[in-house]
């Protein structure tokens, strides 16, 4: 659904995106992770035809993102990092406007209000909405044309934990329903929970790409912390035969209270790859 090959975007000497290649399949939830300025948002801009690449190619929904931008437009949508809504319009009028622009039936508006749980607030002006409600409205706006590829730029930024969890649930459902989702985020836990695969960007370059579990296994520590009855804690290496025997012995003696896997987090992986935390 998304194919990126040696994609580059340079602003003078600054290489915002520098030879990035990846592919995203239909129904996949794909995460672009990285520091500020790593090239995430620029990549999204290139994929949505909002900027012209310096080099390389990007195909989205079967069309070239640069030369066939007009054909891509009805097939994709984007939830912007900024909450760019019309403050003086109501939630319903906002969705009606974009339904009309995309030629979607009016019935889609009520359907989406229901999906994002804004039916009760549909007649209220957007300026009275909370941050979480605005973000849900942004998602609804981006779904108005039933996009085959949905891009989300920092979708949970600034949301309280409850709103963020609700939104993640919504994004996960979209993936399950077959929408291809490409999202950028700083939140590694979010990426871990939501994304089928993630790509780490650093200084415009792709430094790692895989499923979160694979990355954690590949870059995380293969150790376990063992809590014994005497309240001491021991670390055992999972690849070490001697440590395996020690663990077996403790278990036989009934000395083990708990064993904690020390598989790395995506954050650990990122630090190892990018040299500093997010």
């Amino acid at each position, binding site marked *: 659904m998304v194919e990126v090959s040696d994609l580059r975007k340079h602003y003078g000497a600054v290489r915002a995106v520098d030879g990035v290649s990846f592919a995203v399949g239909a129904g996949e939830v794909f995460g672009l992770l990285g520091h500020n300025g790593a090239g995430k948002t620029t990549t999204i801009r290139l994929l949505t035809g909002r900027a012209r690449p310096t080099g390389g190619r990007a195909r989205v929904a079967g069309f070239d993102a640069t030369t066939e931008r007009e054909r891509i437009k009805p097939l994709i949508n984007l939830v912007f990092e900024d909450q760019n809504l019309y403050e003086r319009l109501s939630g319903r009028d906002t969705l009606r406007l974009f339904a009309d622009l*995309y030629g979607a039936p009016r019935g889609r508006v009520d359907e989406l209000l229901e999906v994002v749980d804004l039916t009760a607030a549909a007649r209220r002006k957007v300026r009275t909405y909370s941050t979480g409600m605005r973000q849900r409205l942004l998602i609804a706006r981006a779904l108005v044309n039933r996009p085959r590829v949905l891009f989300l730029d920092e979708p949970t930024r600034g949301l309280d934990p409850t709103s963020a969890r609700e939104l993640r649930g919504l994004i996960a459902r979209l993936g399950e329903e077959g929408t291809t989702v490409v999202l950028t985020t700083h939140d590694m836990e979010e990426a871990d929970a939501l994304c089928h695969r993630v790509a780490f960007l650093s200084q415009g370059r792709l430094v790692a790409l895989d499923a979160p579990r694979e990355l954690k296994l590949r870059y995380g520590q293969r150790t376990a912390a063992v809590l014994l009855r005497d309240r001491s804690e021991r670390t055992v290496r999972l690849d070490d035969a001697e440590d395996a025997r020690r663990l077996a012995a403790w278990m036989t003696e009934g000395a083990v209270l708990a064993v904690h896997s020390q598989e790395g987090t995506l954050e650990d992986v990122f630090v190892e790859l990018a040299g500093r935390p997010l």
Partner: protein
Amino acid sequence: MHPRLILTIFRKDVLDAIRDSRVLVAVLVPLGIGLFYNVTFDDDDTQPKATLAYASPEQTRLPETLREVVGDVTDVTLRQAESAAAVQRLVEDEDADLGLVLPTGFDAAVARGEAPALTVFQPASPSLGGDFLAASLDLALRRLAGQAAPAGVQIAVVAEEEGTLAIERLGLRRWAVLTSVMFLIAMISMLAVPVILAEEAERKTLDALTMIASYADVTAAKALVGLCYVALAVPLLLGLTRLAPDDVLGFVGMTLALSVTLIGFGLLLGGLFRSANQLNTWSGVLLLPVLAPVFLVGLSVPDLVAAVLLALPTSQATRLAMNALSGEALFPDPALSYLVVLAWGAAAYALLLWRLSRREG
């Protein structure tokens, strides 16, 4: 460009923008000024007025003859009083500009050449109209006596400065309301329209629109909003002030040409400022060169200023508007006026297209 998208954005803007206080003010202020001018000024203010009080024991032709002699130069109102004292009181109370007291048999005596006595009351500080009446009295008496004027004077006005009398011909009220019509068009085109565009860019809603529409679609929709506001507000102002152009088609043509041109510049402005508030702050300075020429058309100005006015769209549009309003050719070369206005428009839209092509790229 996509007409369906343009119309959808246009519908949203027409209803949404008017809720913006800055846009509302841009429309309401010129309307208010136009209404104020309308009740403050009178079309006939430029023609002197005079009330002639007279007392005569019998019918007399003198007051009517005096009015005929004065002609269109002064608007004369006749007021017959019962006695000489009443005439004097009217003049003293400034209810009359000139008073005449005629004896019995005055008209017949004048006709016989008997030089009857005529008493004239004039205030210490006579009005322009009263002065003119007094000065015309001798000529009226000669006419009443059946005497020919000593000479047949024929006045021919030569080398009249172009448009010098335009404001007099229009009348102060119509001229003043016309300036508010031009103000209205300028405020909508160069404040309301760019504020709408600048707000879209500032709040980044423009990015959401261009996910499906092009920049050209969005810009065209804003231009339509400006034209729509002009099409509603100008007739409203004309209606409220009962200002009916003699040449309606000419007035519509001028309004359309000027609006299209100024909206082009307004859309350019909308892209130059970072925020709608910044634009609002600087709007006074920006409107000055657009509106100042409107007030100079029809006035006697130095040659250099007159030459500059010929090259400006709002002054040329004002010439067209004055012609259309009066139904007379107060200013020559309407084709040249249209050419100047539309040439500015062409320049504005060429720059706009260039900017849009860079943005689309």
